[in-house]
């Protein structure tokens, strides 16, 4: 249990209780991964559309 603030492995003093709440660096990592996935999927969809346009005349 890696909550913020408060001791680990206890609900005493806990407020934010989600995974990695005590590590801003980890939260930034997951945030950047979300952004990367969104951009990647959009770019791949655009590439598929361009390929389709070339094949459809």
């Amino acid at each position: 249990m890696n909550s913020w603030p408060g001791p680990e492995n206890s609900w005493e003093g806990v407020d934010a209780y989600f995974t990695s709440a005590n590590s801003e660096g980890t939260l930034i990592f997951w945030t950047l991964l979300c952004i990367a996935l969104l951009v990647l999927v959009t770019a791949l969809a655009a590439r598929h559309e361009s390929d389709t346009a070339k094949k459809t005349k």
Partner: protein
Amino acid sequence: MTLEELEVFVTTQANVAMEAYYWWCTALMIAIHVGFLMYEVGASRYKNAVSSAVKNLLAFAFMIPTFWLFGWYIYLAFPMGFSPIDLEGYGTPWNVSMGPMLSDQATGVFWAAFTLFACTTASVFSGAVLERIRISAFVFLAVILGSVAWILGASWGWHPDGWLVTGFGYHDVGAAGVVHMIAGWFAFGVILNLGPRVGKYNADGSANEIEGHDLRFSFIGLLMIIVGFFGFLGGCLIWAGADFGGWVNIYGAPATLSSFAFNTLMGLAGGMIGAFWMSKGNPFWMMSGGLAGIFSCASGLDVWYPGLAFVLGFVGGVIIIPANNWLHSVFKIDDPVGAVSVHGVAGIWGVIAMGLFASGYPASGDIPPTSFGGQIVGCIVMFLVGFVPGYGISFVMKMMGWLRVPDAVQQAGIDSAELGLRATAQ
């Protein structure tokens, strides 16, 4: 039970009930997206039915993470204009405020309701660009509209510290301007650059009617949208658990859910009947008129006399039809579902009607009372917040070749060309 125990019990129950209320409003709003999806599938030709649905699904799916990444932060940080206020990280996705906290039962459910408002703006836009926009381009523009443009307008015109609210007494509790105007005029800006579907206009400038493949889908879809708007409008009222006690409107003034019930239904009925009369019984326009009737009353849902709400809705249902015809004949646009008129034009009418018939209503704190001038300023701002990014960004995308499905793919059908499937096995 001691007095202290009773106080804790009441506070806890009030907060849990508040959470549950917004949870179910959010769930009901998903019906809006079921409705838009069915409406657009029915309004599409058979060869584009699946891709129309995919577009709607992706708008929904992309809006949620992007609204978590930056949409909610924009609402909190930009009430003063284009310069963010210092929130010390609050609202950013890597801040503890954007995850489950025991001390905060409100943020998650409010964020969810706002996210569904954002999804609604994207769905409004979706119908206007039917059958000829690239899916990836649509997704990008939907994110710009839903997670940036409309929420910036909401930060200015909905947030209790928004400059339109504190400076001009702008009053728009049901989002006639904040959602419908911005979405409708954003769509208008995009379709000016996108161009019409192949076959919509002849060389001499005359227009052809391109019929959808199954109006039954559209009828049911439009009614589902109306169902979903009860969740949307319910989510526009503030029930802050144990903090305030009863309901307040989004500006902190006293309000009741009953006022929303009276005026939503009366506006809906007025819009349907007005459009029935104006269109000589066209069922498509009757149901669009019902929506326009709701939007015509949206700014003042908390204060209208129900009889006046009916009249406002009636006028809204009447004006959208000539407005749609005028936009098509003057700008040669192709708006297959009349989204610009139903949302953009009825939204203008709703915002202005608040100034015409409900000036002088006090808000809370230092917010000035409602006024005709304040509503006009808000109307101009909401138009610009929608139209400018819609037109400007889609113009750049057009120059990049990343906006319109090529004519050959349109003629072949997007379903078979891009997705490799058909709506049914017929």
